[in-house]
């Protein structure tokens, strides 16, 4: 009972927080006076590209597309290499995904430009590739950590491979997979700011502009919402994760 109660409370707190976040980013006048107060000598304190809401929208869209695809592809790869047919690739994939994560995200993005050019698509592609790694790795870990007797019992009672996958393996691995998705999304929110340097828009635009024109107000205009966004996404996904595991 108390577990349930604390879960409800954490959802309420999260809801209030998200609401406050949306109100904050939709009130441009508030931002302007805040940044003006901090940097009174700057000529402009708000980046002209668009409202914060628009910038957050662009940013989120990049992250949702890339993380969504990364989730689908990542889980599929993780499942494939834990099947008897794909098992020979398990060590390779598992090593690659660990190794890949040691690559700095900015480097991945920089490498995507000569291959895919500038703009939204190469940014999403780079984010997708980078976001894939934690999901693949956690899917593999989640499935491999299921006690062998559970799987043996499932097969022994006459479940088909599909039934074992969907009724036993994926539900049991779900919590670990979810935390992979969470890591992937949070990393992508941060990395997506770098996407602005190759013209993808989003919250990186004011940051990049601020860096170029030495305007700290622009940097904060992009950085504060980006940090809050990463924090909210993390809290939201962590809450979902917790709800799943305590079911």
């Amino acid at each position, binding site marked *: 009972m108390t577990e349930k109660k604390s879960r409800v409370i954490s959802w309420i707190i999260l809801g209030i927080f998200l609401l406050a976040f949306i109100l904050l980013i939709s009130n441009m006048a508030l931002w302007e006076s805040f940044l003006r107060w901090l940097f009174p000598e700057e000529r402009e304190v708000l980046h002209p590209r668009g409202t914060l809401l628009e910038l957050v929208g662009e940013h989120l869209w990049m992250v949702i597309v890339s993380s969504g695809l990364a989730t689908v592809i990542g889980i599929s790869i993780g499942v494939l290499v834990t099947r008897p047919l794909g098992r020979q690739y398990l060590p390779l994939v598992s090593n690659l995904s660990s190794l890949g994560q040691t690559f700095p995200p900015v480097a991945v993005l920089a490498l995507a430009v000569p291959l895919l050019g500038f703009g939204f698509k190469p940014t999403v592609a780079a984010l997708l590739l980078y976001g894939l790694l934690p999901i693949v790795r956690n899917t593999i870990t989640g499935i491999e950590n299921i*006690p062998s*007797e*559970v799987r*043996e*019992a*499932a*097969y*022994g*009672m*006459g*479940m*088909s491979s599909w*039934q074992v996958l969907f009724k*036993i393996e994926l*539900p*049991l691995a779900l919590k670990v997979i979810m935390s992979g998705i969470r890591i992937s999304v949070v990393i992508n929110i941060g990395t997506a700011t770098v996407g602005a340097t190759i013209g993808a828009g989003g919250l990186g635009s004011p940051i990049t502009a601020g860096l170029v024109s030495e305007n700290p107000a622009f940097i904060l205009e992009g950085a504060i919402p980006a940090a809050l966004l990463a924090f909210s996404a993390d809290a939201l996904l962590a809450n979902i994760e917790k709800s799943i595991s305590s*079911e």
Partner: protein
Amino acid sequence: MIRFEKVTKEYDEETVAVKDITFEIPSRELTVLIGPSGCGKTTTLKMINRIIRPTAGRILIDGNDVTEMDIRQLRRGIGYVIQNVGLFPHMSVKDNVATVPKLLKWERSKIDDRVDELLQLVGLEPKSYANKLPKELSGGEAQRVGVARALAADPPIILMDEPFGAVDPLTRVRLQDEFARIQEELHKTIVFVTHDIDEAIRLADKIAVMKGGRILQFDTPEEILARPVEKFVHDFMGSDRALKRLSRIPVLEYIEKSETIDVNGGWEQLGVTKEEFVWALDEKKKLIGWVDVSHSSRELPLKEALTEMLEEEILSPDSTVKEALSRMLESGTMALPVVDRADRFLGQISLSKIQELTKSDREEE
């Protein structure tokens, strides 16, 4: 009936798990496969439901080669209880038990009824257990759920791989007793793997003693205990095999008639007797106690010469001879009475009779 015909399982040329075994597991009985680790007992078990494929030979269930049956149909028709239970941690007790009925697409109400029935059978109150998760169960409770899950679709065959291995000894004995009672009721064809000889003797109708991938002896527990075919079996049964054997024999088999006296009558009922005491019964043949029949005591009225029995000195027909022997040693007596459920006297079992019978078995060897 499960028939093994020249079945061999080799992993590579060096490791041969099972070597050319041929034997028949009788229907509606409990057959134990026993032996030290690496003897091939678990491999033998798992070849029945094709978790492991034999390298050579055939396994037939009621004449049908298991390798020719649809693997899922085959497995859904065989209950399976494994070593560490293997309950699905994300499913409630009820959903765990309902696994096979759901695979067989039973109706929901039928599944619900069946789950309740099975939980009751294994001694778990459905109301308080159905919605629990495996992590909320004790080891013993989890094992019971494992047994209920294997019985769910009422399969004629059940395979059990050290099902009570992971629980404490006290719980294990209780689970064994309850399981024996369930089997008495259901008469399934059970193949049961264990390395615990006491467990085998307690439960088995037949025992196959295995070593190095071969079956050394396949017989009733009584026969294996009385006449082990080779030194390994002899040693494996333990130095107390005579006692173990007595634990398989109900007192009813060793019971003997003996003199009794009606407590309502007098000494004149007794003629000349060699006995030192006789059992005293009331008019309904209920056991009251025993009477010393030496001459000195005959001077007293019969009722005053009577010694009443303690409850632990009275045996029921389903007690084993081992129990009887143990109680005799405890109470320092040479014989104990056996009564039926209504306390009526059936006869006695005596130390000399036990000795005589165990001795005659030895001489047959």
